[in-house]
């Protein structure tokens, strides 16, 4: 019975720790991955009858009844839409240089847009579009889901997002940042012919050249200027075609052309942040309607300057948030359910124009045009506000957390005011009994009321959209801390029981041997707070590993022991380091932050030759070496009782058996990696055991054993190094092809480490070594948790921090599980 209890006591520690880890991670992940809940609703045409905006629908018999069947939410103002997206289009690429303090070489290159904007101010216009950070990609238009026929060409990301929504598509791989022309040329080849086709309502052409040129060469480069000049020519051709078909009855009679960027870029070509350069992009809109729509200039907010030809040119401003809803209003399709944008007056006016409004005639004649237009805009805004209010209501009831009740109350109040005003305003048009002097100001007030509501919703959403449940995250984190505490407690308990000391040399108080591994682990943990360090994690781990190696070298030189092993170890890590660098340089450039290592091997032809040669030779060599080691391990067993010899054979045998699976999984790199694993592991064992041996010899009989926390640290660092060495990195696209084997080899390494420690240290020492290894892993994961929490609003949270977190967590849980299994096997 007593034995049973003791046995359970040993086992339980591991299971308790694992349970705590699982619990903590589950809670934390639940809080962290609780994003803005994507509501499964879509706006339907019929929904709009719920809104208060159709004054005709209830008591009053009105002519509009018939119109309700013809259009959906709003009356379609345009027939067809051509959207040309130029990725990373800076505002100053489009706007004339006179708008800026000094003229830069990349300005005034898209001449055609400026000319049109100054020549036809009523039908062509340049907008300054302000995107919301993170400025990574276009708020993809949900237009494609609304029954319009869409043709798409260019960036193949669209296809990944909406695989089945396009009537026709010409996707081109956007994978390679260095390739400036594939996507663009594909677009150009297909764009002009498509303009003569009739089988689309919306045409999207997404050019990537400017984005890629920025990433590689920067904004101030010849390549960028060439790209812009090329675009100028393309746009000129497109506009010519559209113009030539825009006669009444023509194909493009009622077409709107939009040339827009999805975000800007900095001078270095980066984007993603919130700086004005990145946030400000441009939209050029041109209507081919004849006669051109009359834009009410009264309520415009635009800035005008003389351009280089001394012509007046005005530029309006638009929030990117408002784009989708404005386009929906223009096309006459239901507004996206989850949009909180507002229909932009200027852009809407450009596409709008002549309305066959039913209520005319009785309004004041001299102001009728403007009054009509405003009336129409007000009714669109009414639908707009109603839709936003509906979304906010549905959102705040369906998701656990969202806006605070005060904010919601404030918004509801604003909305009620606007609706109340509306019930008064619409009477003008129902009964048409007011003089024109009162109509226009009251319309203006109505617009203001709706705008006020919509802008306060947008502000609220920008500032307080809580995507994370901090409470749950904090609890998870607390449990993680608790588990670390339990870990430390268990270690000290075991230490007390078995009389094991952790210090390398007992003479110097809190010894260097204990302090140094803690320092290394702490540095590694803190390094996760910076995205650049996560990006270069492999190199950082190598750096730390070599540092521990150098410290060991100093130690061993001092004792004149194991010098060879340490030097071999350092050499192996050095080779690992080069492999990691090659791996990093191969990293897919799909991410804009991918820092391509300027490796000399890739730059010089000679280096390439050497590299390919090495590629061929090294695996074969290492395979042969492995085979000989295995042979030795299996068949040379004469001096089995010699401790050191048996250690070697055991290690090699163990690792060799595992390495066969690694070799199969990793292909060419396999032999190299497994050889590195064997040699590295062997060296660490020897270095660790040197102390162990010495202590054993010194204190024979006392049972005072020393284990080296440094060894455990080295094991964990080696595992990290080898993980990166084998061509992985902590990003979801860093997974190798065999998805079934996600990180499998890494875990094999951990298992190796565990089994090895068992084999070599024997039973008495397993417990603390396990606990130490687990503790190191847990510390790392805790640091990752903190960093994910801090960076939860960071741009790269989904590209970098979250994958890192997932990888770490999976690693920790697997380690826990294996440790538990091993403890069952060995202690049971």
């Amino acid at each position: 019975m007593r034995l049973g209890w003791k046995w359970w006591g040993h086992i339980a520690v591991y299971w308790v720790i694992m349970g705590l880890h699982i619990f903590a991670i589950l809670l934390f992940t639940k809080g962290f991955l609780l994003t803005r809940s994507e509501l499964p609703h879509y706006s339907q045409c019929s929904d709009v009858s719920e809104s208060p905006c159709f004054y005709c629908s209830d008591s009053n018999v009105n002519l509009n009844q018939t119109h309700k069947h013809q259009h959906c939410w709003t009356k379609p103002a345009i027939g067809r839409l051509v959207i040309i997206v130029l990725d990373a289009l800076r505002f100053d690429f489009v706007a004339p240089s006179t708008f800026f303090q000094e003229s830069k070489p990349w300005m005034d290159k898209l001449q055609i847009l400026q000319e049109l904007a100054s020549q036809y101010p009523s039908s062509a216009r340049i907008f300054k579009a302000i995107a919301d950070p993170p400025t990574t990609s276009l708020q993809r238009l949900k237009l494609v889901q609304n029954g319009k026929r869409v043709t798409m060409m260019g960036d193949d990301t669209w296809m990944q997002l909406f695989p089945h929504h396009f009537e026709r598509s010409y996707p081109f791989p956007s994978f390679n940042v260095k390739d400036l022309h594939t996507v663009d040329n594909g677009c150009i080849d297909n764009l002009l012919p498509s303009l003569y086709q009739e089988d689309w309502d919306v045409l999207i052409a997404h050019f990537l050249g400017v984005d890629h040129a920025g990433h590689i060469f920067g904004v101030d480069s010849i390549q960028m200027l060439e790209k812009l000049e090329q675009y100028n020519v393309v746009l000129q051709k497109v506009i010519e075609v559209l113009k030539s078909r825009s006669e009444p009855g023509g194909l493009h009679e009622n077409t709107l052309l939009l040339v827009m960027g999805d975000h800007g870029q900095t001078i270095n070509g980066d984007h993603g942040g919130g700086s004005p350069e990145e946030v400000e992009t441009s939209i050029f809109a041109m209507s081919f309607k004849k006669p051109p729509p009359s834009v009410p200039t009264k309520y415009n907010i635009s800035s005008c300057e003389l351009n280089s030809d001394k012509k007046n040119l005005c530029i309006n401003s638009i929030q990117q948030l408002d784009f989708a809803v404005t386009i929906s209003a223009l096309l006459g399709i239901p507004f996206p359910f989850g949009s909180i944008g507002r229909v932009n007056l200027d852009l809407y006016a450009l596409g709008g124009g002549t309305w066959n409004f039913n209520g005319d005639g009785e309004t004041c004649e001299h102001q009728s045009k403007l009054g009509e237009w405003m009336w129409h805009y007000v009714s669109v805004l009414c639908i707009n506000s109603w839709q936003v209010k509906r979304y906010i209501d549905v959102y705040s009831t369906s998701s656990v957390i969202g806006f605070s009740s005060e904010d919601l109350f404030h918004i509801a109040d604003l909305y009620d005011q606007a609706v109340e005003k509306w019930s008064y305003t619409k009477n003008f048009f129902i009964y048409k009994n007011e003089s024109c002097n009162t109509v226009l100001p009251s319309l203006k007030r109505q617009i203001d009321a709706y705008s006020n509501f919509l802008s306060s919703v947008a502000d609220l959403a920008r500032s307080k959209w809580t995507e994370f449940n901090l409470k749950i995250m904090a609890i998870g984190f607390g449990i993680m801390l608790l588990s670390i505490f339990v870990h430390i407690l268990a270690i000290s308990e075991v230490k007390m029981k078995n009389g094991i000391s952790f210090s390398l040399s007992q003479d110097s108080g809190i010894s260097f041997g204990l302090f140094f591994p803690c320092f290394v682990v702490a540095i590694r943990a803190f390094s996760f707070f910076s995205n650049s360090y996560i990006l270069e994690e492999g190199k950082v781990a190598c750096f730390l590993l070599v540092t521990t190696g150098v410290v060991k070298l100093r130690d061993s030189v001092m004792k004149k022991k194991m010098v060879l092993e340490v030097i071999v170890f350092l050499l192996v890590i050095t080779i690992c380091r080069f492999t990691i660098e090659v791996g990093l340089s191969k990293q897919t450039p799909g991410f804009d932050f991918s820092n391509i290592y300027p490796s000399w091997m890739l730059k010089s032809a000679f280096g390439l030759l050497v590299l390919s040669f090495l590629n061929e030779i090294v695996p074969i060599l290492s395979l042969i070496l492995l085979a000989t080691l295995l042979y030795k391990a299996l068949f040379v067993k004469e001096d089995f009782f010699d401790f050191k010899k048996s250690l070697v054979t055991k290690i090699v045998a163990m690792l060799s058996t595992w390495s066969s699976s690694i070799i199969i999984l990793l292909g060419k790199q396999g032999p190299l990696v497994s050889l590195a694993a064997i040699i590295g592991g062997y060296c660490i064992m020897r270095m660790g055991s040197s102390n162990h041996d010495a202590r054993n010899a010194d204190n024979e009989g006392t049972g005072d054993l020393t284990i080296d926390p440094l060894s455990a640290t080295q094991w964990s660092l080696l595992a990290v190094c080898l993980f990166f060495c084998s061509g992985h990195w902590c990003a979801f696209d860093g997974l190798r092809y065999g998805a079934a084997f996600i990180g499998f080899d890494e875990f094999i390494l951990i298992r190796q480490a565990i089994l090895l420690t068992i084999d070599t240290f024997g039973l008495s020492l397993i417990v603390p070594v396990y606990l130490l290894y687990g503790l190191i892993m847990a510390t790392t994961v805790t640091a990752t948790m903190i960093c994910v929490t801090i960076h939860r609003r960071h741009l790269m949270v989904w590209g970098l921090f979250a994958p890192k977190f997932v990888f770490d967590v999976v690693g920790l849980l697997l380690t826990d599980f294996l440790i538990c299994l091993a403890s069952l096997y060995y202690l049971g």
Partner: protein
Amino acid sequence: MKNQNQNQRTKTTVVEASAAAIVSASEVFLVHSISAIGLAISFWVASSHHSITLISHPSQTLLHLWVIQCPILILLYSRYRQSPQQFSYLRAVGRGILGLIAGALVNAFGAIALGAPIGVKSLSKTINWSMMMSLFTVVPAASVFGSSWTDWQRIFGYTKPVGPIDYMICLPAHGAVLGAWFGAWPMPLDWERPWQEWPICVSYGAIAGYLVAMVASFLVVLVRGTLQHTKRD
């Protein structure tokens, strides 16, 4: 037990050796300030005569640095060679030059293992940097101790300096290495500054660590000296 015996033995030899060349705090100050002035001069020559800085031309600047600093340090430390009766001044200088090359090799290996880029482009940078590091770390010890293994072990293995000369060698060497180690930390950051390149910030770190450690060694020698004086009184 064995270790302790060895320790004691080395200690006795050290005490004898340092008794032969007692160095006052002012002399330590002089030596350190000369080497600091040497550093300053080499930077001044590089910037004023060739208008290069560490950031614009790291390789050439480091070359200037070690070429100017090398004779200063070797000649300076050779004066404090152990058992001057046995070994001539010239021999100590020769040992210093040998130490420069050997130390450069060790430093270069360490740098490459820790992550210095290899390749034709960075080869000269690595060579010049390791020459500089060798000057900071190995050369003074080589000039003073020669091939006396126990002294080397005492300084670099156990880090237990005794006497002003030991402090003068030990602290700056360790300071330079630690400074270089910490100097490597800004390198992975994505600030895209020119000084983040190898070996600029590492060199800055090493020089900073070296200078700080020189001040520290002077202070330690000063404090110890006054303590001993008061004890004697």
